[in-house]
């Protein structure tokens, strides 16, 4: 049997971005190849053993809604599921799973191998082949050439990767793997600009050497449900716990003792690390008075003997790490199995790709994940999915999928990334989302299932099921809007007894529900609607209550969403040689010409336009429509 040499789509890299990209591509019918340097480490979690959290959890649920794989994979392979922010409101509530790293990988590898249209091969890509700024194929270090129509690069932290441990450093990648040498240079030869970013990971210790009995136990939530719609009510009866300990004066002294060996002090590493995940040495440099830092002790799997020390990230040398670890309560006798390390890698310089993840420089080239300047498995997976979808849409000659930041965290992610110019890896949080009451975790499928179905990653069967669920909630909201309760004595008595106020004039079901303390159940009882066509599933009731109770906030948000969505709809580049465009100020015009932006909303967000300039620009772009309207 001969090896195939020509694919519609080739994906470089088997991390979380690569897996989603390859699966999306193959599932949408394109013959696809995933090339990875090591099949064994496909879907590896080289850092923390968890998926989700505020913003990230939203992303994972959205990935599931669009037909991506991460959601169901973690639902099946987690050792713990937890609800975060439960007391802080519906907009920021999110799910976080502790993964069994080994099972997750195995499950994902199996999915890839079982996927129709998808080949997986081991090999290191050293070159991209382009002609006329259009992608043609790749070259492997073996000398083999493979041709493709679309190429998706998801190189993670592997490009020209360098591991740093105190004064020592060497070319290398996570888990003692090889760095990917050659590809970066090839990208640069083809006009793409690169930059260096860094990140780091904490040491892993032997479980039996840690005194977990004296640490605070952090169990999961049985009823947190999973990330996929199908698992939303799943109960995780069997879970394992995380544990919490803290640094104290001894730890601070230990870090200080070895501070001169910190890569940050030695300055043998780029300073561009993730702000949201500082190393212990960076924490101390930045917050010198803080003594008590949290250390989460997390399992890496059901049967794993390793524990991950969240909070003790560092690239300091082994002796320093041993000193620091043993200074922490519960870890006094901890045996370090793998030392923490810092890693420096090549990523794209800002402003070189569209929201669709396609390169602005080379046609047919897509990038996703850490190469685009993000950190996190979830961010990588989300981009991989969008890249895979858009590679296929463009192959088919169809309009690209531009997720809107007004409709999804995925939209926020790709929109932010395409304009992200900071020298630090990007992590999604609710703080990046302006419309987070709309982008709630529980509304993910209602926002995105139609997109997923239209794109083709959601089957008809699944779509219909979720559509019915969505309709059930929406119909019931409508019913409560239209049903009225008259202030009869029975109703007033019930309300007085439940402390939900008095009823002086007729009120709709929705108005009743907006009262503090009022629940859907009570409203249906008051409306005598308890018997027929009532919602019974807890998630449906939750969605309905949230929609109605926060309507005032949602309506105000909607006003702003309309403006942003309108501006997002106006894509750049446009007819900028039109003489009439000279009315726009030169600075903004230059920026528009440089094509660093995809649409007007980005330019407005980046403060490149004044309001009046925008009005004029819009008028130019909509000239004909405008005349019609005024006529």
């Amino acid at each position: 049997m001969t090896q195939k040499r020509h694919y519609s789509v080739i994906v470089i890299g088997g991390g979380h971005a690569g897996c989603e990209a390859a699966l999306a591509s193959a599932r949408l019918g394109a013959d696809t190849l995933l090339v990875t340097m090591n099949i064994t480490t496909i879907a590896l979690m080289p850092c923390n053993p968890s998926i989700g959290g505020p913003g990230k959890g939203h992303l994972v649920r959205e990935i599931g809604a669009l037909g991506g794989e991460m959601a169901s994979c973690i639902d099946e392979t987690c050792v713990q599921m937890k609800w975060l922010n439960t007391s802080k409101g519906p907009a920021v509530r999110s799910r976080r799973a502790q993964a069994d790293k080994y099972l997750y990988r195995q499950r994902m590898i199996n999915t890839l191998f079982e996927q129709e249209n998808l080949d997986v091969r081991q090999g290191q890509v050293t070159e991209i082949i382009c002609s006329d700024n259009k992608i043609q194929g790749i070259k492997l270090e073996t000398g083999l050439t493979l041709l493709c129509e679309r190429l998706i690069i998801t190189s993670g932290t592997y490009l020209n990767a360098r591991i740093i441990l105190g004064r020592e450093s060497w070319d290398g990648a996570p888990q003692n793997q090889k760095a990917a040498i050659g590809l970066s240079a090839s990208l640069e030869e083809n006009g793409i600009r690169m930059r260096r970013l860094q990140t780091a990971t904490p040491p892993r210790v032997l479980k039996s050497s840690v005194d977990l009995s004296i640490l605070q136990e952090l169990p999961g939530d049985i009823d947190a449900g999973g990330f996929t719609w199908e698992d939303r009510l799943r109960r995780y009866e069997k879970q394992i716990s995380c544990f919490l300990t803290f640094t104290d004066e001894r730890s601070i002294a230990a870090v200080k003792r070895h501070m001169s060996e910190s890569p940050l002090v030695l300055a043998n590493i780029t300073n561009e690390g993730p702000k949201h995940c500082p190393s212990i040495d960076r924490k101390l440099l930045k917050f010198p008075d803080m003594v008590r830092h949290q250390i989460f002790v997390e399992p890496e799997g059901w049967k794993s003997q390793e524990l991950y020390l969240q909070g003790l990230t560092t690239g300091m040398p082994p002796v320093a790490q041993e000193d620091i670890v043993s200074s922490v309560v519960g870890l006094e006798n901890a045996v370090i199995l793998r030392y923490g390390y810092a890693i420096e890698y090549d990523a794209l310089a800002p402003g070189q790709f569209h929201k669709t993840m396609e390169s602005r420089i080379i046609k047919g080239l897509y990038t996703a994940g850490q190469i685009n300047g993000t950190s996190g498995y979830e961010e990588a997976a989300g981009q991989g999915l969008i890249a895979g979808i858009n590679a296929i849409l463009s192959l088919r000659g169809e309009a690209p999928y531009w997720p809107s930041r007004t409709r999804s965290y995925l939209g926020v992610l790709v929109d932010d990334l395409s304009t992200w110019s900071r020298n630090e890896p990007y992590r999604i949080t609710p703080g990046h989302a302006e419309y987070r009451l709309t982008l709630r975790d529980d509304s993910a499928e209602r926002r995105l299932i139609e997109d997923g179905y239209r794109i083709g990653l959601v089957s008809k069967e699944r779509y219909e099921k979720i559509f019915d669920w969505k309709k059930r909630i929406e119909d019931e909201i409508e019913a409560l809007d239209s049903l009225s309760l008259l202030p009869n004595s029975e109703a007033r008595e019930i309300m007085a007894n439940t402390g939900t106020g008095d009823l002086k004039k007729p009120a709709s079901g929705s108005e009743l529900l907006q009262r503090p303390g009022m629940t859907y159940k009570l409203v249906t009882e008051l409306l005598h609607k308890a018997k027929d066509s009532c919602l019974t599933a807890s998630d449906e009731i939750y969605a309905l209550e949230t929609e109605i109770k926060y309507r005032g906030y949602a309506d105000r948000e909607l006003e702003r969403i309309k403006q942003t969505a309108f501006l997002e709809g106006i894509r750049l580049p446009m007819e900028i040689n039109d003489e009439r465009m000279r009315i726009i100020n030169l600075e903004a015009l230059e920026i528009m010409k440089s094509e660093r932006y995809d649409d007007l909303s980005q330019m407005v967000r980046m403060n490149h336009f004044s309001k009046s300039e925008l009005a004029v620009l819009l008028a130019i772009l909509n000239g004909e429509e405008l005349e019609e309207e005024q006529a």
Partner: protein
Amino acid sequence: MSKLKIDTIAALSTPAGRAAISMIRVSGPDTFEILKKVFKTGGKRAFPLHYSAYFGSIIEPETGYVADQVIVNTYLSPKSYTGEDLAEISTHGNPVVVSKVLSILFKNGARQAEKGEFTRRAFLNGKMDLLEVEALSQLLYASSSTQARLALNQLDGLPSKFVAKIREELLNQLVQLEASLNFPEDAIESIDENALKVALKKILSELELFADNARNGSLISEGLKVAIVGKPNAGKSSLMNYLLGRDRAIVTDIPGTTRDTLEESLVIGNIPVKLIDTAGMRQAENSIEAIGIERTEKAIDSAFAVIGVFDGSKKAEDEDKAVLQRLKSLDKPVLIIQNKSDLPALLEDEFLSGLKVIKVSALKGEGMSELISALTEYLKTDGIGSLEEMVLLGASQTNALDKALSALKRAEEGIGNIYQDMLAIDLEEAVRELGRVNGETVDVNTLDMIFERFCIGK
């Protein structure tokens, strides 16, 4: 794609400052809809006809308050400077009047035009060619940040610093809140809702005081109140009519004709004045008069200055004595007028002795210039004071200030009942709107502030 909605803009088109006449331009599809709400014209002509002038008043619809008497020139699209429906409102040339008229326009749907915006619209609608526009290049090609600043930065000095301070305080609260929402496991102390409520209460009261001041500013911009008091038939209405230059108050020789107070706006010595003609001060003989007298007292209370009118052609009566006593008790500027100097003087000299008295004949106009300059002196020295800053505040930022206030009220009232994520939404809105009050266009990056303040690591 949704269609573009061009809004309606308004701005002062003549140089700012005191002048004989100021011209405010309004342009856009809603121009006449807005004017129909705020402009009252007496004629029988339809409004608006193309290229027509209308005399009338700019009136605040909610209060019926008359801001100024104006001439409005109307131009129907496309035959106008901008090519849009356009009106030019000629007001009295006074910043205070202009500010008030603008604020009425803004409240009723117009938006403050940005620098050069009328010209741009003209260009857009094919009213100017590029060469003409090039001539305005300095205006048009200013850098965007400067333009944004010019458009928004209407404030300077203390009010602006005050708003900046409040905004900073709110921002600090917001950052604390956002930190715990974004990084729930980072051991960030969750926000103390009771303390936040106290802090918000304090901020709200400060900000409401500020809004009150802004309102006072606009009260001043509505005109300094001057009440005319005196016994019935002393000639108060004649005096008012003279000052207005037309018959507004009903003048008869039957005492007590003016049973209600009448208010009229005019400009005296470049200062807007709201003249209040009161019912005569005397013992009420019927209930209607009693109401009139009660209103007179109210008018005196609210007035900045009071003009006391005495009939020089009659001997002092008990009512005159009562009026004089009331005037002497006032802690505000008082002008004593001895009216009817055209008739034989019968008022005893000693009645008003020791007081600065201006003798006038409201009917004939004698002595009126002396009256006007005396009044102007009072208005200038005591009335106008530190007005300028206040007035600037009143016009286009009121809307943002109101939004900020209501967001803060929602937050303050909501604490304990609403979730913290909603609280954050309200605080964020307040910070955003206060930024607009102050013309601070720089976006706030709360995440950056979180990383500065908190050790985030989970």
